[in-house]
């Protein structure tokens, strides 16, 4: 009989989930799109994301046109009419290239989503392992701390922190982050979502530490660190991966909300959130400036959520089985051994 590792089984399940694979494909396409930003900016648009072109004229299909008209109206999408310059038009009265900003803004949004998810994961796994393994006072202190953060609505907490750090930056001991740095929203988002991941991990650690393999490791003289990182952590990977994926999507949404409200990415840097905020002021005269970054956020979050769901189904079939059992369609799946 051929034996297969759980990872291989999960991979097989994921491969058979065509919706999840399509979502992954869409996400990869978006990543490639934003990674190509310097290429597009240097080779096609010949401008940077923050370069202003307020009084410039461009030739569109042989006709000279203002990038920004004297009454302040920005040029709309010209597609390939100006050899790729201002493909999606100008971003507003500053006359910055919307396409270039969209691509660079996507890099910022994705980077924030990813970096904040890493911070959340590190904090949540660390705290969850400590609380779940040691229990007692350690658990009580960590759990109450998480409860305090949990008690605040995420956006309100994010705005409060973002506004407080917007002028003076962050200074904690040797850690110094200047105001306007992209690391401010990353830290804020990574911090506010920590309880949402740490609590389930703590619960899973509490259950795992009662298992025989943990008792066996302890009986063999394994210390707390070895048990936590050598025995418990490998059993948490599937949970962590699923949470991590979904967390990126949530982080991007929060970044967009904070930037829209002025507490996230600071101008003139672009992110999809700041682009929606900037475009919102011109929503009557140039609605595409709001719609395009909005659609990009929608597609990215949708692809990550669908893929995350597929990943969860692949890594943790039990959750799907339970759901299907509730629905009355439970059919036990035979696992090859």
């Amino acid at each position, binding site marked *: 009989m051929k034996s297969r590792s759980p990872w291989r089984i999960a991979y097989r399940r994921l491969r058979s989930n065509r919706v999840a694979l399509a979502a992954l494909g869409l996400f990869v396409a978006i990543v490639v799109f934003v990674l190509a930003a310097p290429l597009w900016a240097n080779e096609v648009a010949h401008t940077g994301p*923050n370069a202003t072109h307020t009084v410039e004229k461009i030739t569109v299909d042989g006709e000279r046109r203002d990038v920004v008209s004297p009454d302040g109206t920005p040029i709309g999408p010209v597609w390939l009419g100006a050899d790729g310059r201002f493909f999606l038009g100008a971003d507003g009265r500053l006359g910055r290239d919307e396409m270039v900003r969209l691509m660079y803004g996507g890099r910022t949004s994705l980077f924030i989503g990813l970096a904040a998810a890493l911070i959340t994961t590190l904090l949540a796994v660390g705290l969850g392992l400590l609380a779940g393994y040691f229990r007692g006072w350690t658990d009580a202190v960590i759990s109450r701390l998480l409860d305090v953060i949990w008690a605040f609505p995420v956006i309100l907490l994010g705005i409060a922190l973002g506004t407080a750090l917007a*002028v003076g930056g962050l200074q904690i001991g040797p850690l110094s982050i200047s105001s306007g740095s992209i690391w401010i929203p990353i830290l804020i988002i990574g911090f506010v979502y920590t309880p949402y991941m740490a609590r389930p991990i703590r619960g899973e650690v509490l259950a795992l530490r009662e298992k025989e393999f943990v008792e066996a490791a302890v009986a063999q003289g394994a210390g707390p660190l070895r048990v936590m990182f050598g025995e418990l952590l490998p059993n948490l990977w599937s949970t962590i991966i699923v949470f991590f994926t979904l967390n990126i999507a949530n982080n991007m949404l929060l970044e967009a909300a904070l930037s829209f409200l002025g507490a996230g990415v600071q101008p003139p840097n672009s992110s999809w959130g700041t682009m929606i905020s900037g475009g919102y002021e011109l929503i009557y005269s140039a609605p595409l400036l709001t719609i395009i970054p909005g659609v990009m956020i929608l597609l990215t979050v949708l692809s990550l959520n669908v893929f995350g769901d597929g990943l969860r189904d692949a890594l943790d079939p039990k959750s799907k089985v339970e759901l299907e059992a509730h629905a009355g369609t439970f059919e036990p799946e035979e696992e090859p051994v």
Partner: protein
Amino acid sequence: MRKLGVVVSVLALAVGATLGLAACSGSSGKEGGALKGSYASFPDYLDPQLSYSAEGWTAMYNTYIPLLTYAHAGGEAGGVVVPGLAEGLPKITDGGKTYTLNLRKGLKYSDGTPVKASDFKSTIERLFELNSPGTFYYTVIAGAEEFQKTKSGGISGIETDDASGEIAIHLTQPRGTFTNELALPFVALVPPGTPAKSQSTNPPPATGPYAIAESNPGRGWSYERNPQWEKNNAKLMPDLPGGHVDRIDISVINNQSTQVNDVEQGKSNWMFDPLPADRYAEVKGKYEGTQFRVEPTLNTYYFWMNTTQPPFDDLKVRQAVNYAVDSAALERIYAGQIKPSQQILPLGMPGYKEFTLYPHNMAKAKQLIADANPSDRDITVWTDDLSPNDEAGAYYQDLLERLGFSVKLKVLNADNYFTVIGNLSTPDLDTGWGNWFVDYPNPITFYEPALTGSSIAPTNNTNLAQLDVPSLDREVEVLSKQQLGAKQESKFAALDKSYMEQAPWAPFGIRTLSTFVSSDIDLGKVIWSPIFSNDLTSFQFK
């Protein structure tokens, strides 16, 4: 005065139109009702001694009355000083060094406390205790400078008699504009014992037709009729209007487009702020003459440069910035609502004489930077978050980067922008966006508070460039002692050029402002004061 503000005079057509419309409107229209208005940001302070913004002055024009005040009229007439709490204009003696006024008898604050002559002295002392940005107008009072330093012992140059109501103000030297300055909100009387700290959350009792009943900084405030107005004060000050509406509720709505929508839909009756750039043409086209009116204004929009530290302590760098700033670009950023200008005095101000010292020339700007070769190229650009000021800041940041600087842009909430950049302990105060509106129709108000060494203050600083050129200060001081006339106007014109040779600012234009009201408000009756913008007593429902 910072932010939105003044209009003056020379635009006689607009003046005539305003007055004419007001006259034609007659006395028809409803009395009473609740007026709803909106501001994009909360005023700097709702405290007459502290506020130095158009937002605050509009809000308090009809609430806190000084001994003298400005006529409730548009255009030139609105720049005329008239008696307020005083019975008449001051008697000026002792070679222009003593001003004597008499308080009207029987006046009361909105809480019923009688108004006394000695309240003027305690109000001036409170002004200095608060380190108000307006103190520089009143340091000429004998003993004021000493009191400013010690905050004790009172101001010896003010003598009052509560029994007769006489107030005598002794100056250390004549001051040609002191009558105008006695009519500013800084010296509007408040009851003695009003704490020497900002009262924005609990504004002091009023003497005018309206009293601030509730204030929630950041969110809004409300007025009710001053109960003492009808009982006492209105009869004693018959020339001052009592207002038509019974209540005024002001909300802070950051999004100016939402403000426009609210006025269009009748959810709000008036918006304080200028129209957002992308709605201007639409609103003007649909409502001009019925709900919308362009108002003549006197202001200067500019980028200030901190002359006390590198790189802007180098004149060549400042001149380079002036050459680099393209007024045409900023005209587009402000959607055509700004008229390009490169000087300190705005068109229409007495003493204005057009010149262009720094025609846009990027090559010359880069050459000057190369000549200066500044060692410090890391700079911070400051601006507020109201559109399009935030975009002007982003434009300026990009411009400075093109000149070879490494630039960080800081965009602050408009509610506290000037408070933060007016605090000299704020780090990295290198350069940024600013605007200046006249305090009263005299060019001195563009120099003395904003560009003289004596106006530099550790907090509430209004000289953002921190310019201190003694030779120019002396010229301003000489002009401050004189009444404005043709000779003085030509001196102010020369001074304008002298200041721009120092290039502490890179001025880029004069902003057009407007009045926009809901369809149920009689636009013809709405007064645009040259000093206080919209006069809330003039709003009347049809």
